[in-house]
């Protein structure tokens, strides 16, 4: 769960990490009145849940209230990587002497927390890491260890924070680390940490990404108005529909509707379609042990997509049950009807019961099944994939 800059800074403030004074504004008029009240040059910063905001023109300076009005008006019309700019953070323009980078994240290979710091903040830290790795300080810490002030001061010293600011700089690093642990973060970054001309250290930006799976134990976030949010940028109507139904779904460019089991074959199946010369229309994940209702909804998404010419179904029942799968397909057929070919393979957990349900339904209403080819464990999944590609080509009027 990625936080907006202003939310991240609220957390920073809670941990007494120094941040600039700021106002949040949702309209040009609000921007105008705040800047007029302050009467100083400001930075106007688009609040969007994506990186590269600066390069995309999402941060602008303004000398006074009138300029701020013009600039804000432009910013509110921006869309950055699919995210429309709905709020601006207003901060005094900083008088920057030097910029540092401080980040905390998880090294999944070593199972350690890691603090990353550099004397070259403000620019692309990944580029620095690649081109001048010696300019990156890296310190690993076990999840059971605390970060001591002296360790943080050691880091601060190594990235060039001057001696008289070592305690302050070290304290900022310790607080950032404590914030990371306290809130189950995946990533926290101050980029840049600014040393101002009058000798103050201040967190000019805040990037905080929390573990969605741990938000349940941070009730205070909700009190602060920070709630679970969708981090996707631009979404298609169908993606929004799927999201509403709680189904992981992405539109892709092709014409084969992917109706897979778990995410594993969801990903691999897309590769298979490519290998055999086809193009998937989507990515989808049924989730573990889907209900018949959910199965039916997955099919609705595909059947109503005009780009989809054929549906490729695969179910290897594990925690999910083939009888539930069959029930879902039958529910869809009865309530909605299938308008295009469906080729599918079903095996695994209680597959016999799935097959029985299909046979029963087919005996009752054979017309529902006229576009369907069903296979079991005897047919390799590669053959089904090829058949889907073949059917798609036929539907497009190809060979």
């Amino acid at each position, binding site marked *: 769960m990625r936080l907006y800059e202003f939310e991240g800074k609220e957390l920073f403030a809670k941990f007494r990490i120094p941040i600039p004074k700021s106002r949040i504004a949702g309209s040009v008029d609000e921007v105008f009145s705040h800047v007029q009240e302050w009467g100083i040059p400001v930075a106007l910063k688009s609040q969007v849940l994506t990186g590269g905001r600066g390069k995309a023109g999402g941060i602008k300076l303004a000398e006074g209230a009138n300029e701020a009005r013009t600039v804000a008006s432009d910013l509110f019309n921006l869309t950055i990587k699919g995210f429309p700019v709905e709020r601006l953070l207003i901060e005094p323009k900083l008088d920057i002497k030097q910029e540092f980078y401080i980040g905390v994240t998880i090294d999944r*290979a070593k199972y350690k927390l890691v603090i990353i710091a550099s004397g070259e903040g403000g620019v692309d830290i990944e580029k620095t890491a690649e081109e001048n790795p010696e300019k990156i300080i890296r310190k690993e810490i076990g999840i059971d260890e605390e970060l001591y002030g002296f360790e943080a001061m050691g880091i601060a010293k190594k990235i060039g924070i001057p001696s008289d600011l070592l305690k302050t700089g070290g304290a900022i690093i310790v607080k950032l680390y404590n914030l990371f642990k306290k809130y189950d973060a995946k990533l926290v970054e101050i980029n840049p940490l600014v040393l101002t001309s009058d000798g103050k250290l201040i967190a000019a930006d805040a990037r905080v990404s929390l573990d969605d799976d*741990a938000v349940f134990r941070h009730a205070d976030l909700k009190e602060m108005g920070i709630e679970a949010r969708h981090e996707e940028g631009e979404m298609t109507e169908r993606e929004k529909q799927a999201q509403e139904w709680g189904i992981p779904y992405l539109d892709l460019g092709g014409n084969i509707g992917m109706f897979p089991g*778990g995410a594993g074959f969801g*990903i*691999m199946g897309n590769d298979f379609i490519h*290998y055999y010369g086809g193009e998937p229309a989507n990515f989808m994940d049924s989730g573990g042990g889907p209900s018949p209702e959910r199965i039916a909804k997955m099919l609705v998404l595909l059947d109503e997509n005009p780009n989809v010419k054929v549906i490729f179904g695969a179910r*290897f029942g594990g925690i999910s049950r083939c009888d539930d799968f069959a029930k879902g397909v039958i529910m869809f057929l009865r309530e909605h009807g299938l308008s295009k070919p469906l080729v599918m393979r079903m*095996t*695994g*957990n209680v597959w016999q019961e799935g097959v029985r349900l299909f046979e029963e339904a087919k005996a009752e209403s054979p017309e529902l099944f006229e576009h369907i080819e069903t296979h079991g464990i005897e047919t390799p999944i590669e053959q089904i994939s090829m058949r889907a590609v073949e059917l798609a080509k036929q539907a497009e009027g190809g060979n």
Partner: protein
Amino acid sequence: MAILVTKDSKVMVQGITGGAGKFHTERMIGYGTNVIGGVTPGKGGQTVAERPVFDTVEECVLATGADVSVIFLPARFVKEAAIEAIRAGIKFLVVIPEHIPIHDMLWVRKEAVAHGATVIGGNTAGVITPGEANLGIMPDIAFTPGRVGTVSRSGSITYYVADTLTQSGYGETTCVGLGGDPVLGSTFAEILMEFEEDEATKAVVMCGEIGGVYEEIATDVIPKMTTPVLAMIGGVFAPEGKRMGHAGAIVEGKMGTAKEKLAMLADAGAHPCKTFKAIPETLAKLGV
């Protein structure tokens, strides 16, 4: 032989009195798994599937000699349950639930390393040694005893691979579901080394996918192995930077693309397979 679990393993189930715990305990017993009991705090003294339920792992281990645990509990209780099991002397844990807080898994991993225990998961379909023991939620149908090991981040891919090995007559020694969560109890590298030390395993199929770092660090051990490693990676045609279901499957910069993973694994000496049917073909070429 096999790795991690055999018919002699004494398996306990944490969360045995819950819905999923009870259902899968019965399924595991049905497969022949030596399930000796379970733990649910506050429900000591009850029975599930004729197995005794204990309040604490310590009591269960003392009474039954349990040495393996399968965890069926809500994600938020996994940290405590896993550490309890590890400290009580359990040496192999299978963590089925998904959505375990990442920091929790770091704690679990730390305890596991400190106590020499192996943790599989979270978000795994489980581990099966065909014909001996089935830990978790994997369907029996795909598996048959044999001579190839598998290790995969995805349950469904495990089934397809095992099915392929079964159909082509190779069968499986042990199939390990590494799990789909972003931070896992064990890495490919560690499971590959287990297979390397197992005489019955003549080859290993490892199946990864885009995202994460576990495929990359497998390249540390593959060059040292005498057992051949076949590698499949899902997501070669995945759109970059888009979330595809598994939380772990977010492309992390350049690291983590399927193509790079495959290239690194091939460089390390693994044999890349694009499709399932390439697996028996490759095994035949290798003379397995």
